[in-house]
């Protein structure tokens, strides 16, 4: 092996070197020749590859470009049948075949090629600062050209945005070498000098060496556990290092500008300090620890207190202590935060010190242990492999233009998900990412793994790496790269990616739990890239995805933390099985803060006193399963094991298919979720009662806020859905209806699983608000062509229906009701149908010709100018309400019913959001379908997470998205059926061509929505008419539910409340008391109207139950009271208030508890000059020297009016 000098930034220590330019001796490539020489000497394969790459670019530029334009590298997409990509590739082929390919295009290609090769040349820099600027310039030019060509090939404008965004992101996070770096480099220089001048020490017996260091230098040797014993014979010594190098991200220029700069300084220990057998029994690590302590002592002695020195475990690996040197700044206060870089001094060993074969994962290096010691071996090997890896990564970054950028993207992705190299954060960090990607770019990969192309751009490299990590389970299919005698270590469940050339399992710090969690995230992101409807950029790189409260459906808190986490993990994964898709041990988001300790102190491990948290992500399909099937009774061995694990919970049962099995039966009664029952049972059985009892289970508190919410599904709505079915059948069963029925459609929130209370929940005997239903008859020419006459015909139909229905089903009570008496063209009658079960429906007739008549009447040029304004108004009102009630609402309801069926947690999520908005008195501003859409977004476009599998997750993530919603500039779009498409695709892998079916939106549809949104902003820039633009694939106007309300002020308040809630969620995490999100602040309103108890919901409930409580027989006998259906005095009161004072006051109301109406004076009611027609009651004010005075709103009199109108319903009115 060649010395690493050529590739690493070695700190020159030869006295002949120019001391002024610290980098001159070790610039990455002193010249081309040396570079060539290095790679030749290093590895034959690499030089071959170089040649191949360059020829690839020059000779076959066109094809290469064609590939590189795609969003994803085709070779590694075996698993991911991305039809969009297929489309594109077809297009590519077509264009290539087309021999008359346009001049422009060819020109573009040629130019692009030229730029590409220029880029190549540029990318080998000599001067760091210039290089960064140049490169980003040429890059953006290049990207632009490429993008234009992509357009030709793919014709999809959306993909450009992603490219541009990534370019923008990279520009921001690329390391900038400025002032900090200059000071860092001078610090490094002096540090190097200090280290070189530390004198060699004598060889001393191990304990004596330790004592002397403590005695004379006050440095405690950070020996690993177990410490060297008293009978240890060998001696320790310090000698001048063989080399000092800067390595790692800093040297490779792949550190991110967002992160704290950490400069890794490797001090190569000379081989003379070691003996052959030192790889055994921690001997190497003892020597290393002593060496490090000596270094620390030497540095502290020579340094004038400029550096603050601490020990730390590298990546939390207790075998590998390192020295952290942080420069002290002059200002004492800034000591901790002022210095924005730290230097990490890592002792390392020559890579030839121990043979690679000795430290293979299946070898045993600790005497007394029965098993192989993969972790120990890998830690040992890591020290020796630091420089070889530096070389590998560097050569990869030379070969592939975009390697560094891909590293930066990977880094950002990892950072946003809280992953890092340290064991506590998963053991997969930037180093692992870069090393893995570098290996996957090599030619000599084992069979079955496809090499990455050197032509990939940064995003393709990133995506390919992630795809690799997501698709292959490295615990079951380990990878042996360049390693002939691959053998798994005994009893290992850890992932394995063994790099035979450097002898390391790159993933050695990951255990099966953290690996699963990591793969879960990778899979989610890959799934997201396959989802064509959202631009994945934000979710992949911008959004922070490490807040435990938004990540786990349930969190178990074990206090004190058990010693054997592996055992806990295996118990959990065995007992929960397919009920969960992820079990993550250790969920704290502060885990990446590695403890450091001062030199005199004893080594500190992780903060263990905080207990252990285990995060669970449910699998929504299985999580509520009541019965678990165990092994058959005929299988005695399996049964015994089953019984051994489950104890007395296991019971033998005969099932429907005749089999007799061991099984487990869980209870769905009570408010303990099944998951919690299981967890408590197995903890009691295997870890003892104390552990089980001290364990806290977080996760159901939020869902329980809505009645029946802990079931996390739609079961509470079963009753009404059955009743609706009955109604539908009953009506269809009538023979003598004048017209045949075309359709009976549900339009009510109670019929789409989204009302806060499920109908007839608890002890209620009678639905108070009837469920709206629409009935449509077959077309007939006998309908009148007159809008008012149509309304009368509807009444006639309803009356007919009513008499037929009550004749054939005498138990049904049907009542005709009138509405909209002010509006002649709007639907004016409905039929309330009440069943003896207490279910009530409100039936309205949809006549499709109405829409046409209304719009021609309103829009036809001949009549519209002649219409009186009042008529016009009421026509417009009628048209809008017709569209909403008869067109948009049925479509929405059907779509949502399907969605609730597909996403079990959606229904409770919507209901929680309803409740949340009601608690903050926003009910009157958010119509129910709008709330549905706001909540559904977290399911149809859930990224960066997967689809929420519990109500709490759905709700909190909805708050997260709402808090980030910039409603002035972004439309909110929900695609119900496109999600289905993706799922269908996933389900039937390989089923190509089926992806375009169904009602999903195309890119063109999405563009149109965006255009419509922008048009609205142009038409109504003050956002008075349309503030929020919320569209779905079934209602694409975007204004169906948002015209006139919610108003700007209300939307702003909602987003503000969501932000405040997110702050609480982030701070409190899974320990959050859900009450805190629902506390209303009444002090912020100008006045508050308190409703008398008997008219509020609680009062009504009380009355009902107390009646029943006193006379049980009465309660049993109580019949349904159809007169009460739809009676809502407070709601009617609020509507009238809005009619009378709507122009002067914004009203707020808790539509769930029905106990408070609050109001804000509209700012335009402030003091102004008097005029006749003000739209609020006014109070004249004196103004000197002018007979036309000022007026202002007469607040007292208005409040008095409200008190008079509300009369006996009002407890009191408070002014703030």
């Amino acid at each position: 092996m060649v010395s690493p000098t050529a590739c690493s930034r070695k700190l020159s220590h030869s006295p002949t070197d120019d001391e002024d330019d610290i980098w001159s001796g070790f610039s990455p490539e002193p010249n081309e020749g040396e570079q060539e020489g290095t790679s030749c000497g290093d590895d034959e394969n690499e030089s071959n590859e170089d040649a191949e790459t360059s020829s690839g670019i020059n000779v076959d530029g066109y094809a290469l470009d064609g590939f590189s334009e795609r969003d994803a590298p085709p070779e590694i997409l075996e698993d991911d049948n991305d039809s969009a990509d297929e489309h594109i590739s077809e297009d590519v082929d077509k264009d290539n075949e087309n021999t008359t390919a346009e001049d422009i295009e060819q020109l573009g290609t040629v130019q692009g090629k030229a730029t590409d090769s220029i880029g190549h040349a540029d990318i080998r820099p000599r001067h760091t600062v210039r290089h960064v600027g140049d490169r980003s310039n040429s890059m953006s030019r290049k990207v632009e050209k490429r993008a234009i060509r992509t357009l030709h090939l793919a014709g999809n404008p959306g993909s450009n945005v992603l490219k541009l965004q990534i370019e923008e992101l990279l520009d921001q996070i690329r390391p900038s070498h400025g002032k900090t770096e200059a000071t860092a480099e001078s610090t490094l220089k002096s540090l190097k000098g200090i280290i070189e001048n530390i004198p060699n020490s004598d060889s001393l017996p191990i304990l004596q060496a330790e004592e002397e260091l403590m005695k004379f230098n006050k440095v405690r040797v950070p020996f690993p556990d177990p410490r060297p014993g008293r009978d240890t014979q060998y001696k320790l010594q310090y000698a001048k290092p063989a080399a000092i190098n800067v390595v790692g991200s800093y040297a490779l220029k792949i550190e991110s500008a967002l992160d704290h700069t950490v400069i890794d300084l490797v001090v190569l220990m000379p081989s003379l300090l070691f003996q052959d057998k030192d790889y055994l029994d921690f001997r190497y690590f003892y020597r290393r620890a002593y060496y490090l302590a000596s270094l620390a002592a030497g540095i502290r002695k020579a340094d004038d207190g400029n550096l603050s020195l601490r020990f730390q475990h590298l990546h939390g690996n207790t075998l590998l202590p390192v020295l952290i040197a942080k420069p002290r700044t002059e200002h004492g206060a800034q000591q901790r935060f002022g210095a924005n870089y730290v230097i990490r001094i890592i002792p390392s060993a020559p890579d030839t010190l121990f043979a690679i074969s000795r430290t293979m994962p299946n070898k045993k290096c600790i005497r007394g242990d029965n098993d192989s010691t993969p972790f120990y071996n890998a830690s040992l090997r890591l020290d020796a492999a630091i420089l070889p890896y530096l070389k590998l990564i560097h050569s990869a970054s030379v070969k592939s233009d975009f390697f560094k950028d891909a590293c930066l993207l990977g880094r950002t992705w990892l950072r946003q998900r809280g992953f890092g190299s340290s064991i506590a954060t998963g053991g997969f960090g930037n180093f692992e990412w870069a090393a893995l990607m570098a290996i996957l770019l090599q030619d000599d990969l084992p069979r079955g793994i496809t090499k990455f192309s050197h032509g990939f751009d940064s995003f393709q490299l990133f995506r390919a790496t992630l795809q690799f990590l997501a698709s292959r389970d490295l615990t079951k299919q380990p990878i042996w790269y360049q390693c002939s005698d691959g053998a798994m270590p005994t009893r290992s469940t850890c992932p394995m990616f063994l790099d035979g050339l450097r002898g390391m399992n790159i993933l050695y710090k990951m255990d099966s739990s953290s690996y699963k969690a990591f793969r879960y995230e990778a899979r989610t992101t890959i799934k997201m890239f396959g989802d064509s409807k959202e631009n994945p950029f934000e979710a992949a790189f911008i959004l922070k995805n490490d807040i435990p409260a938004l990540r786990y459906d349930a969190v178990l808190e074990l206090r004190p933390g058990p010693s054997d986490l592996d055992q806990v993990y295996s118990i959990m994964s065995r007992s929960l099985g397919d009920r969960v898709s992820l079990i993550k041990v250790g969920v704290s988001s502060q885990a990446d803060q590695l403890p450091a300790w001062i030199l005199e102190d004893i080594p500190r491990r992780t903060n263990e006193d905080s207990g252990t948290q285990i995060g669970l992500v449910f699998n929504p399909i299985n999580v509520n399963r009541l019965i678990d099937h165990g092994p058959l009774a005929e299988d005695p061995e399996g049964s015994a094991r089953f019984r051994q694990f489950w104890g007395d919970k296991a019971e033998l049962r005969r099932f429907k298919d005749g089999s007799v099995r061991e099984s487990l039966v869980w209870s769905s009664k009570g408010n303990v979720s099944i998951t919690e029952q299981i967890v408590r049972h197995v903890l009691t059985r295997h870890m003892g009662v104390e552990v089980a009892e001290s364990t806290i289970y977080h996760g159901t508190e939020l869902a329980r806020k809505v009645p029946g919410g802990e079931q996390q599904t739609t079961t509470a709505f079963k009753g009404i859905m059955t009743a609706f079915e009955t109604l539908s059948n009953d009506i269809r069963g009538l023979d003598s209806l004048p017209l045949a029925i075309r359709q009976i459609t549900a339009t009510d929130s109670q019929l789409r699983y989204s009302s806060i209370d499920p109908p007839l929940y608890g002890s209620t005997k009678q639905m108070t608000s009837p469920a709206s239903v629409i009935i449509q008859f077959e077309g007939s020419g006998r309908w009148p062509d007159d809008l008012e006459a149509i309304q009368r015909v509807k009444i006639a139909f309803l009356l007919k229906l009513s008499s037929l229905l009550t004749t054939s089903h005498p138990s049904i009570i049907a009542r005709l009701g009138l509405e909209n008496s002010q509006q002649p063209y709007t639907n004016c009658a409905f039929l309330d149908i009440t069943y003896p079960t207490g279910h009530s429906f409100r039936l309205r007739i949809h006549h499709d010709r109405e829409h046409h008549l209304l719009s021609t009447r309103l829009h036809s040029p001949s009549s519209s100018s002649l219409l009186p304004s009042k008529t016009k108004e009421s026509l417009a009102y009628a048209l809008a309400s017709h569209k909403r009630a008869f067109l948009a609402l049925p479509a929405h309801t059907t779509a949502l019913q399907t969605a609730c069926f597909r996403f079990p947690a959606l229904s409770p999520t919507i209901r929680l959001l309803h409740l949340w908005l009601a608690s903050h008195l926003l009910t009157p501003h958010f119509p129910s379908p709008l709330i549905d859409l706001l909540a559904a977004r977290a399911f149809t476009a859930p990224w960066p997470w997967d689809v929420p599998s519990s109500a709490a997750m759905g709700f909190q993530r909805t708050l997260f998205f709402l808090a980030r919603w910039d409603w002035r500039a972004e439309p909110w779009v929900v695609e119900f059926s496109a999600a289905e498409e993706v799922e269908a695709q996933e389900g039937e892998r390989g089923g190509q061509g089926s992806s375009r079916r169904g009602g999903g939106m195309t890119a063109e549809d999405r563009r149109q929505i965006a255009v419509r949104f922008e048009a609205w902003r142009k038409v109504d820039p003050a956002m008075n008419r349309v503030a929020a633009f919320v569209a779905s694939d079934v209602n694409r106007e975007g204004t169906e539910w948002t015209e006139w309300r919610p108003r700007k002020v209300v939307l702003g308040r909602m987003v503000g409340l969501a932000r405040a809630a997110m702050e609480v969620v982030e701070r409190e995490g899974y320990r959050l008391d859900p009450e805190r999100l629902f506390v209303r602040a009444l002090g912020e309103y100008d006045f508050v109207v308190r409703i008398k108890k008997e008219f509020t919901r609680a009062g009504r409930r009380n009355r009902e139950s107390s009646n029943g409580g006193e006379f049980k027989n009465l309660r049993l006998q109580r019949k349904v009271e159809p007169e009460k259906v739809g009676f809502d005095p407070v709601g009617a009161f609020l509507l009238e208030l809005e009619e009378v004072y709507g122009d002067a006051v914004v009203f707020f109301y808790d539509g769930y508890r029905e106990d408070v109406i609050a109001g804000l004076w509209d700012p335009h009611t402030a003091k102004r000059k008097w005029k006749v027609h003000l739209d609020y009651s006014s109070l004249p004010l004196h103004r000197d020297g002018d007979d036309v005075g000022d007026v202002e709103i007469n607040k007292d009199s208005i409040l008095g009016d409200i008190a008079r109108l509300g009369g006996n319903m009002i407890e009191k009115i408070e002014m703030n």
Partner: protein
Amino acid sequence: MAPQKVPPQVADFTVLPLTLPSLPSFPKPTTHYLYIRPQDLNIPHPDSPRSLFIANVPFDATSLHFRQLWADQLGGLRVEKVEFEEESRSRIAEAAANVDEQNGVTKGKKNKKRKRGRVDPDEQIENEETRLPISWDRELRKSGSSAVIVFVDRTSASAAMKAVKIALKAKQSITWGQDLDGRLPSLGSDRYCTHHQLSFPSAKDIQLKVDLYMTRFAAAETARAKRLARLRQVPDEDGFITVARGGRVGPARIEEAQRKAEEQKEKSKGREDFYRFQVREKKKQQAGHLLKAFEEDKRKVQEMRRRRGGLEPMS
């Protein structure tokens, strides 16, 4: 609210403070201000000279309120009728729509609104017999709306204005809705209870009304068809025959005509990819579009950067 601070006059309106009885739920005594002046004589209405115009009518005002106000508290004058803003506006609208509208409409509460649009004297379909019942027992006024009070004669009107001024000078406290308890439907939950009951009228009544309406409607339709047929057949005085709806061939629906026109247009276009130059132009155009789309995307990303303070990862 201390009334003495209030100017007696704004513009040419006299300010009349009304004391409102306080309620236990809002014990503060409140004052409402009416702005009164004689009706502007420029409004060409026979009633104008004997009317007063009132701005800022209380939300619960009824004509009974005003009758009582002048009868008991302001000089014992007789109010003939009160026209509230909503009603009079709709009347003006109807007049403007050139609908001849002098058919003895009774002064109900909502009835006016039910009859807009085309109303032909001989096609009077909707009247008291066919009108759907109204579900409110009392109408509310929008806050800040106005009303016109019509007195029995001119002298009463001017006396009424004088009475207001006298009362003001005497600092006489005038109470809104005095002695009206029990004479008007009450507010509060009773109002909504009644509304709920009225919303569900007897099916029999409704059936009758609807049947009658439909009979009349059918009759009117037939009459209209006849008249139109006559129009088609008989030339007018200039010898022209009016084009009218109906007849053997119904007039084409507008939307159908439009569709047909579209089709024609489509046909006349011809092939677009016949000549080489056409293909070339088209490609060029496409390239232009793509470039534009790219520029658009670039703009979008710039926009994002500006909005979120750069596309910076959350921390």
